[in-house]
């Protein structure tokens, strides 16, 4: 009884704020996450596009950043940081990227990966 009093009863305003928060998060998920499979991997080094690769291939890319060599692997339509010279290894821990719009980045070595969709600028062709 005392414990319940200490936590207090949920207040109407709090519940509303949480609900609005949930709606915001759901909306963000809906609008920012695509289920579409990606077709290409774009790699940026610093502020330049290093290169764009098709995901229809298996290959390993080593690139020299400010603090060392970052290794990126493309396999089975997915891509990931395989190894990185950065201390925290956040980029490697992000694992495989496979959907359009997914991105991973390594701040210390200034490398970023972003998955893009295929180049088709339209859904179907009128002829």
């Amino acid at each position, binding site marked *: 009884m005392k414990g319940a*009093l*200490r*936590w*207090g009863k949920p*207040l*109407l*305003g*709090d519940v509303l*704020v*949480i609900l609005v*928060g*949930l709606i*915001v*998060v759901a909306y*963000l*998920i809906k609008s*920012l*996450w695509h289920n579409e499979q990606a077709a290409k991997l774009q790699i*940026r080094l610093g*502020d330049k596009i290093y290169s764009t690769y098709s995901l229809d291939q298996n290959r390993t890319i080593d690139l020299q950043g400010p603090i060392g060599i970052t290794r990126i692997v493309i396999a089975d339509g997915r891509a990931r940081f395989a190894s990185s010279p950065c201390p*925290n290894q*956040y980029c490697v*821990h*992000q694992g495989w990227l496979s959907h359009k*719009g*997914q*991105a991973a*980045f390594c*701040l210390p070595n200034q490398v*970023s990966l*972003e998955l893009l969709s295929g180049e088709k600028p339209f859904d179907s062709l009128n002829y």
Partner: protein
Amino acid sequence: MTQPQKNKRIEIKTTADDHRIAKLAAFAIGLHLLEAVMPSPLPGVKPGLANIVTLFVLYRFDFATAAWVSLLRVFASSLLLGNFLSPTFALSLSGALLSLAALFFVQHLPRRYFSAVTLSVLAAFAHMAGQLLIVRFWLIPHAGVAYLIPIFMAAALVFGVVNGLLTNYLLRINPAKIDEAEG
């Protein structure tokens, strides 16, 4: 001649509140440091337990004191961690500033309906927004961070609620001075 000066210095500076605020700020710094060394699945996703202290101070003292504790924590922690003026510090500072701005606007919501949970959630959202702005416009302007926004915001919501509940709890088990005097 020297004696009165010494006395005067001591008399001016310390009240019981000063001591409490200093203790709370130290506590906030401790929590901040603890989180800094804790592993995180994604950079930027952290519980933000130090915000509990900010909220507690806001309720027990006032907004100015809460802002002071929050900013003191950001600066002191970065000095202790050795990342002062680094990107990490910028993320921390912009997060803290935006979350304080949010608290400034919502602190006067009627307490009957809105507890620390509301303040904590809104502050957490603002905190994330502040960090994302830095990421987008300064750290990695090109990379598609859009994909990560839902994760950040979902984390902000979850931790915001948890921190708010913890703040409510702490406020209840540590009643204000008036309550103490009366009880």
